[in-house]
């Protein structure tokens, strides 16, 4: 879960691995001294990991999302589905990439890591109201950025997931 959150923030497997390794190095250093008072352990660990990710982002520009759409090799249905799935993944990765860091972090913690608003706000050291504002602004921006993709993706989708993405 720390790795997945780091990957969402950094957009690169290698960078996420570095962040996780650094997180656990800090964890091991503090393990014996850690007491279950104040912040929950999980909150503390997320906070460490996400701060490392934010530091990395400030030092280096976020890398282009991996798993870009594969080149079309043939017209088989299965290959089309793979390409479509990769295109969709790439589109959302790219849209997430363009969000301000703290909006991306709020969405990563609440949507992907399924943490409560209180836990996410604690990790980010902000109020729940501020977290909600980041989430709402982030999701609205994503919807706006993904809107141009709608027709392209709608043409290929079977399940109608994007029918209201506007």
């Amino acid at each position, binding site marked *: 879960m720390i790795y997945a959150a780091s990957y969402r923030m950094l957009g690169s497997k290698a960078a996420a691995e570095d962040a996780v390794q650094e997180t656990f190095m800090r964890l091991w250093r503090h393990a*014996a001294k850690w007491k*279950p008072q104040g912040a929950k352990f999980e909150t503390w660990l997320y906070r460490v990991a996400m701060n490392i990710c934010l530091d990395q982002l400030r030092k280096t520009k976020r890398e282009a999302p991996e798993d870009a759409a594969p080149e079309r090799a043939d017209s088989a249905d299965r290959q089309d589905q793979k390409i479509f799935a990769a295109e969709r993944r790439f589109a959302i990765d790219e849209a997430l990439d363009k969000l301000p860091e703290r909006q991306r972090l709020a969405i990563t913690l609440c949507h992907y890591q399924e943490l409560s608003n209180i836990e996410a706000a604690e990790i980010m050291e902000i109020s729940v109201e501020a977290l909600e504002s980041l989430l709402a602004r982030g999701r609205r921006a994503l919807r706006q950025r993904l809107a141009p993709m709608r027709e392209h993706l709608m043409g290929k989708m079977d399940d109608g*997931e994007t029918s209201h993405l506007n």
Partner: protein
Amino acid sequence: MAKLPTLTERLNALRDCADAYGADIARWPAARREAFFDLLDTDEAALILDEARGLDGFLNAATAPRMSEDLTNRIMAGYAAPKQQAGLFDFLRGLAPVVRLAPAGVLAGLGALGIASGLMSASAQDPLTPEYEALAYVDDLSPVAIDEDGGLEWDAE
């Protein structure tokens, strides 16, 4: 007396909530769920939730890779074999929810590095906590089982 919000104001508040938390009302804060309960069956609310569901679908399609075994090994290699020391059991109890979704290799690594023995000896003094119990339900946790006495058994494979 405070003025009651109009339907439009309530729908706007519902939209703000869906914009923040998505279409799955089970993931909304409980107070919000209750506040909007009577609105959820309306056409206006259905439209708002459908919009949010569209974005949820996109977000859910962007899956993250799993942590590699190599990274797990590197992380565990960074852990200096712990001695029985004050605070370690509390630390591990806190760790349980975090490792619950981690690859089995992390837990196998914990065992390989001697943390499991710390857990087992601690379990002789402490009641079996939900967090501790959760260790037995880690995804693909084939190397670990709870024995009859409530200790963790590690299968060396």
